């Protein structure tokens, strides 16, 4: 009380003087409890008495790099990332590699050839002139070809982790997709399936043309699945296409265990992932249990779990190739629901998850009266009614 009167008198003197920007001295520092920190504070080690002897950064990029590294260090105070990782049940668990072993031969000749190629590039006058005049246009197709041979498996694996493909299809496991899948819907390049690009269901209405590098006499299995589409169980997938015992690179010559069904992402549900997985077989496999009747239009028959399928045949199959695309609703999906699946079309809308409130406490300290309304479970608010 005495403090408050001091403050108000100070204010009065400020306005009496005709000055508006006089601020009072806030004395709340003495009112709150001060406790020592629970661990070492950052920049403790810096000796503030002798700042001249400290090593300076002298450049912004050097500071930025150190700051990025410092962000990744573990700290003793609570962070948002810490909370998120705690909530995630399988954070930090060991993931198993279920793919083909990645083998690289001795690279001495390759390195020598590459160095020679780089030296030739430097001597190439045409290339040097276009580089100097900044008119050089890089050939994207050639870069794509070289990339497919060299770093594509790692990049596709990173993207697949970002899209949650391994988390949903093969929990606690991953694989390096060493066989590159060329999948194309239609004739032009806009219908190609890469690793996450957007296609419309109208483009994907019929089975695509597939090609991949395969030696003679090898057998493969191709699976097209969608983990997001299931209308009843959110943990299950729908299998759209399953072809087994594919000889060489010809998908037409394989046994079609489940015929091709075009994608049907329901309206209002957003983007669904459609994932092509190519498995390498050790020998011919009899897929008697997984054969579906020829036009399999029953969604219950198409309910699928890649984990169980893989577990059944894991001694004979190894995942070797991966490609996926995203698709959202358009008018052709209505036709698929009405004509092909012979059912009415479901339509959904987005519901935001409820706001988080901490567990209710019997004596809430410094909370307003509407604290009780937060735990009233959707009944009418009782404040603000006059």
């Amino acid at each position: 009380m005495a403090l408050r009167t001091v403050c108000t008198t100070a204010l009065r003197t400020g306005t009496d003087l005709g000055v508006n920007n006089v601020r009072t001295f806030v004395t709340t520092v003495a009112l709150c409890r001060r406790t020592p920190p629970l661990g070492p504070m950052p920049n403790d080690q810096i000796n503030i008495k002798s700042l001249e002897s400290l090593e300076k950064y002298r450049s912004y990029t050097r500071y930025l790099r150190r700051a990025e590294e410092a962000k990744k260090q573990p700290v003793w105070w609570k962070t948002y990332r810490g909370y998120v990782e705690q909530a995630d049940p399988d954070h930090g668990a060991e993931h198993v590699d279920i793919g083909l072993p990645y083998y690289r031969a001795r690279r001495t000749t390759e390195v020598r050839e590459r160095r020679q190629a780089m030296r030739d590039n430097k001597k190439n006058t045409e290339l040097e002139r276009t580089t100097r005049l900044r008119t050089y246009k890089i050939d994207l197709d050639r870069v794509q070809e070289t990339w497919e041979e060299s770093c594509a498996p790692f990049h596709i694996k990173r993207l697949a982790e970002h899209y949650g493909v391994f988390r949903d299809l093969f929990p606690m496991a991953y694989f390096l997709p060493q066989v590159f899948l060329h999948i194309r819907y239609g004739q032009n390049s806009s219908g190609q399936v890469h690793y996450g690009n957007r296609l419309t269901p109208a483009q994907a209405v019929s089975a695509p043309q597939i090609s991949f590098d395969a030696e003679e006499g090898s057998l493969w299995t191709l699976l097209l699945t969608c983990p997001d589409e299931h209308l009843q169980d959110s943990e299950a997938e729908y299998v759209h296409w399953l072809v087994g015992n594919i000889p060489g690179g010809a998908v037409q010559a394989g046994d079609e265990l489940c015929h091709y069904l075009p994608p049907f992402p329901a309206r209002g549900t957003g983007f669904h992932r459609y994932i092509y997985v190519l498995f390498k077989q050790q020998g011919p496999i009899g897929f008697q249990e997984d054969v579906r009747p020829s036009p399999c239009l029953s969604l219950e028959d198409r309910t699928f779990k890649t984990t169980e399928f893989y577990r059944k045949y894991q001694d004979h199959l190894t995942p070797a190739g991966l490609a996926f695309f995203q698709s959202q609703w358009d008018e052709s999906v209505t036709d698929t629901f009405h004509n092909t699946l012979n059912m009415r079309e479901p339509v959904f809308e987005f519901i935001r998850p409820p706001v988080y409130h901490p567990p209710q406490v019997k004596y809430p300290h410094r909370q307003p009266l509407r604290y009780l309304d937060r735990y009233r479970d959707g009944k009418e608010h009782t404040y603000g009614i006059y």
Partner: protein
Amino acid sequence: MALSGLNRCVRRLLGQIQRCRPIVATNQTARCLSQAASQPEPSADENEAVNPTFVNRNPRNLEQMALAVKDRGWKTTWPHREFYHRLVFSRTQHHVTAQVFSSSSPVPVLTCSTTEWAMKKELASTRCVAACQAVGEVLAHRCQQAGITRMVYRSIPWEYRSDAVQAFRKGMKDGGITLSEPRRKYVGT
């Protein structure tokens, strides 16, 4: 994400639907490419069983619909963290690197660097302005293939005006990438 079913299409009273015809599951042989269907079609009622709550597990779905939460705050520091994907462009003494990060992890989602053999093969010099433009074009191509077409690029202010950064931005924009993100939609709050 949780969704609710609208009543237009999925209203059904429990226990009052009669099955029309039972399904006979015939076990056909493996090779069934051209054989016509011989058993009756599944009755519409079995397919119409739909859960009123739909969960889409695609982690990129909400951000593509601009409904996902962005990390707000951080307005008093630089750079801010209010994005779904961000672009980082760095030049070292010998190489040029561009990386795309998502807001959730410190591991980059996409990278394009002149250290890769695919780029070194095509370029005379891996540190010049033409190399920066090439890196921009190739990264834009990869982003289009990966379905990430919108991202935030906050460059260091005094480096923004340099020819290299401008060439890189030009390469990205010519490849069809938009260097801004859609504003978040606030639905239902």
